[in-house]
């Protein structure tokens, strides 16, 4: 018997909705059978808490007196440059932006201790940050410089707007070379001495709705500890990849663009993050509720770590040189168990995405729904799926000849 979002919301309102996390549903379905579980369960909650670089926030900081056109000028938040190519007092701050005087990798490996992600975390924590700006004057916006403290509650709008989050699966990174390498997948020891992965596996949102049958534009979600929305598919959304029989991609595939009011969020779920030798990023907490509209959707949410595969990729050569292929496939059960086998060698594993925190997000969202604080939405449009014809392209260089 199929259900609708409206019916599920009615139950949430009455406090009678049956909600499980994507981890709990595995045993529930095994015990009751898929058919009965699909009838009884209304929502399955997912969660992920990992570094997501294509994140950022836009702000409207309010007008100064006299007025000042930050648009087209230079603006810094705690010395981190913000993008000003908007109207007078709108700004965008990217998670990976860093102070102009950060030495980067000049002293290798760079530490990357501060950047846009940390400014976002501090703002969300209610702290004051320094807003420094210089610009040109106009008849209507005469002021040319500004130095002030500002905090989130003083701003008109402060919105987290992430253009690529919650990657549906990811590479497992190893290093075949004979020296240590510093990557966005962490510090990789030489000659296969460690392997780093980055997914919540069976709890990860898109792993539980592999063909995007419920998640789409307008899906209400847990974002950074507050409430947010899926804006659409994220950049590099690439649904047409190798999948398992159950439809779970065996490599990076779908992605999400998300937004939400920063003023509702918490620093526990938005963390500034530093990858030695690589750069700054934002660790984002996302939880997505999956409405159990039918048996097929329930079946997808029962996916287990031992049924989710990831590709092992060499980050010393294959990845930087854009050489396709992988060194083999491993499951998240093996990855979370602490060791995998690559080229006949046992390699210890580490995660970059926190499974403990992913679990906490799924539980929190379950609590919100169970207590009638969070209702599900009907997406305006589902995410493009495998039949969308989307093909993931590399940059086709057409060198410009100097005359």
């Amino acid at each position, binding site marked *: 018997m199929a259900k609708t979002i409206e019916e599920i919301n009615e139950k949430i309102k009455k406090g009678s909705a049956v909600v499980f996390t994507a981890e709990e549903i595995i045993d529930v379905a095994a015990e009751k059978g898929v058919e009965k579980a699909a009838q009884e369960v209304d929502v399955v909650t997912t969660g992920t808490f990992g570094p997501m670089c294509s994140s950022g926030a836009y702000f409207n900081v309010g007008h100064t007196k006299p007025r000042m056109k930050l648009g087209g000028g230079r603006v810094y938040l705690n010395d981190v440059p913000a993008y000003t190519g908007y109207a007078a007092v709108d700004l965008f701050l990217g998670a990976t932006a860093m102070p102009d005087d950060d030495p980067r990798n000049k002293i290798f490996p760079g530490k990357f201790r501060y950047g846009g992600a940390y400014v976002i975390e501090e703002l969300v924590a209610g702290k004051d940050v320094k807003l420094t700006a210089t610009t040109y004057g106009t008849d209507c916006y005469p002021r040319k410089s500004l130095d002030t403290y500002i905090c989130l509650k003083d701003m008109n709008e402060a919105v987290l707007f992430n253009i690529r989050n919650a990657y549906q699966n990811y590479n497992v990174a190893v290093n075949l070379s004979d020296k240590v390498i510093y990557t966005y997948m962490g510090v990789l020891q030489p000659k296969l001495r460690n392997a780093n992965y980055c997914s919540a596996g069976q709890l990860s949102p898109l792993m539980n709705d592999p063909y995007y049958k419920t998640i789409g534009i307008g899906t209400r979600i847990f974002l950074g500890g507050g409430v947010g929305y899926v804006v659409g598919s994220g950049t590099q959304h690439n649904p047409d990849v190798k999948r398992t029989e159950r439809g779970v991609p065996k490599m990076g595939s779908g992605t999400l663009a998300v937004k939400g009011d920063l003023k509702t969020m918490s620093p526990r779920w938005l963390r500034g993050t530093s990858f*030695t030798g690589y750069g700054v990023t934002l660790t984002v907490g996302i939880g997505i509720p999956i409405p159990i509209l039918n048996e097929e959707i329930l079946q997808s949410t029962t996916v287990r770590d031992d049924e989710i595969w990831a590709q092992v990729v060499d980050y010393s050569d294959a990845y930087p040189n854009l050489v396709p292929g992988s060194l083999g496939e491993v499951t998240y059960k093996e990855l979370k168990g602490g060791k995998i086998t690559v080229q006949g060698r046992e390699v210890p594993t580490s995660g970059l995405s926190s499974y403990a925190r992913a*679990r906490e997000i799924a539980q929190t969202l379950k609590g919100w729904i169970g207590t009638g604080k969070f209702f599900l939405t009907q997406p305006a449009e589902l995410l493009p799926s495998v039949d969308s014809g989307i093909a993931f392209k590399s940059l086709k260089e057409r060198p410009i000849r100097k005359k």
Partner: protein
Amino acid sequence: MYKRRVVFSYPPHLVEQPVISRLVKDFDLTVNILRALVTPKEQGRMVLEITGTRSAVEAGINYIKEMGMELQPLAQDVKWHDDRCIHCTACISICPTKALDVNRSSMEVSFHRDKCIACELCIPACPYQAMEILF
């Protein structure tokens, strides 16, 4: 056998005196130098793992103290800021002694000071600056 991991620092006038060899010869101790920073005419600092019978280890440590050296357990110099840790496990595969370990059922990370040898491999590996080693 009894084992102690200690950090000891000594003033300039003791830098040129043999200390480790006395611990080995006179007190019958096994001394493993985990880290050392000794600069002539300045202060020296070492992380030692001292192994022997309980009484020998205590006698050796007394000898070091009587020489005028400052001594403290290693644990005081290594800090795991659990409020910064998100339990991602990035440090787990890199820690050689399992001082940083994960409970595979809760997937939560914990730090066992007594196993730490202050190698600092976790410092660049932790993206959240949850580990701090003062040396």
